[in-house]
């Protein structure tokens, strides 16, 4: 059964179409990512799903309920962690947790939740004195305190330092398998790669790709990129002449070569034949980051062919 079912969602602000026919569905217990550059329409989409905005077209069902006719049952079923939402500076962690748990009919035990989120030591601290990571963890706690079936987390780790970010990710990994369906909004590929079962990429109000994170990374025809420090001087023209090589450039004392999937072995063998070793070798797999950049760049250049390709893949991915 799908927990979130969005069909041809549309939303305009004035004459500007912000969400332009977005469709996807999320299964129960799944961690689903909505990715996209800033201003792509991600937040508007989840605010429609959360019943905070009224869509101009299309339909949304969350746990079988229509958010536009939101009632208490809907608010009990859904927890939302909003982007940049603060609490009063002089409210303590325990007070906030206790207060918000009083709003729900079957709240989680807030002490246990605090412990799970590593906030036990901060229970008596004022919100204003918490670190960025602690504030975000509290925010996640408030989204989960009502024992929701679906939780929406918007730009969860934006503005956090890498340590705090990993802390929050660890927490979400713990939630996997507890039956909570998570909808994650991010413009941060590493986050999606690590947490999400499936993702959609949104750009300018439309879905431009939908797949698993690995499928998305693999699906983009991106060059393999390798770099190394040669043990002796290499003529770039010699490397350039190899069939698998697309570009050759220098970066400090490193030589950077891009090309097909075979480029790394082709270059190493060719160098070996000349008695040159490739030291400090590094080969980068195309990542979700590359996929994201390739997808959104294609789109902004209005490359029709690329658009059609990704859209046909979208259709497959979404209903798969």
């Amino acid at each position: 059964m799908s927990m979130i079912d969005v069909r041809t969602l549309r939303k305009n602000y004035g004459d500007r179409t912000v969400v332009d026919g977005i469709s996807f569905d999320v299964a129960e217990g799944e961690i689903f990512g909505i990715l996209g550059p800033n201003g792509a329409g991600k937040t508007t989409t989840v605010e429609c799903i959360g019943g905070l905005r009224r869509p101009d077209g299309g339909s949304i069902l969350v746990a079988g309920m229509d958010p536009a006719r939101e009632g208490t049952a809907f608010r009990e079923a859904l927890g939302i962690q909003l982007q940049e939402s603060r609490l009063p500076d002089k409210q303590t962690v325990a007070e906030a947790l206790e207060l918000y748990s009083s709003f729900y009919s079957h709240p989680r035990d807030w002490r246990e939740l605090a412990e799970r989120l590593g906030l036990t030591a901060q229970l008596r601290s004022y919100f204003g004195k918490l670190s960025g990571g602690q504030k975000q963890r509290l925010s996640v706690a408030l989204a989960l305190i009502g024992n929701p079936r679906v939780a929406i987390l918007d730009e969860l780790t934006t503005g956090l330092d890498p340590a705090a970010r990993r802390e929050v990710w660890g927490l979400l990994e713990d939630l996997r398998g507890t039956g909570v369906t998570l909808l994650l909004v991010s413009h941060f590929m590493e986050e999606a790669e690590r947490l999400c079962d499936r993702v959609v990429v949104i750009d300018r109000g439309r879905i431009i790709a939908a797949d698993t994170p690995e499928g998305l990374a693999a699906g983009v025809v991106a060059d393999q990129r390798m770099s190394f420090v040669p043990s002796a001087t290499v003529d770039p023209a010699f490397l350039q002449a190899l069939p698998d090589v697309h570009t050759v450039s220098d970066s400090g004392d490193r030589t950077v070569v891009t090309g097909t999937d075979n480029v790394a072995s082709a270059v190493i063998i060719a160098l070996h034949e000349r008695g040159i070793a490739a030291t400090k070798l590094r080969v980068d797999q195309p990542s979700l980051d590359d996929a994201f950049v390739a997808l959104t760049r294609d789109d902004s250049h209005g490359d029709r062919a690329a658009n059609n390709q990704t859209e046909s893949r979208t259709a497959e991915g979404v209903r798969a």
Partner: protein
Amino acid sequence: MSAATALIRSEAKLLARNPGVMLWTAILPVAAAIVLAAIPAVRHPSDALGGLSFFAIYQPILVLFAITMLAVQALPDVLTRYREMGVLKRLRTTPVSPALLLFAQLALTLSVSVGCMLVMVIVPALVGASWPQNVVGFGIGYLLTAWALLGLGMVIASLFRNAKVAAGFGTVLFFVLQFAAGLWLQRPLMPDWMRRISDLTPSGAGTQALTDAASGHWPQLLHLVVLAVWGAVMSVVAVRKFSWE
């Protein structure tokens, strides 16, 4: 504990931890009322003030001073900041309506201003000033004044998104309202045309209603109607215009 009780308790706790605004609001008029009442000469009727004593003129003005400051400065300041911080939006995502938070803030503001008013009535009476002669009239006048001014504060919180702009507007409005109440030129000394304008303001009508009730009369119908119209109109505007984000 119900959500409403929990919210009021939590807001009261936050207020107690951040007493700055409320305290400064209350201290000046309360202290002034007590000091005035302690000076015997101030309690004697004066022909220049239409047969009232200086204290009888100033006590209602100081009562208005406190509630005006709380209603048009402190209240919009808290609410616009809650909106800016996303507290109201976050409440929308829960089964509880953010309207409950507005209600809690209104209830707290009203309680603090009633507290200030009681101190300004009781302490002067204990040091020798007179008690309000018509207690029921005084109470009715006070509650209608509170309705009008709190409504005005809610409208400020509705119209201004930026907390600093709202605070600036509240300050200017405070001085205008206090002028109408007669803080600088007492109402009996105002030229007729000015007093007629003052009659139509919530602070002018409120001051006169309290003055009349304190000296044993019933507040005039004009002033009660003016206060009720302000209260009703401001409430409707606030309900229509207030937004959570």
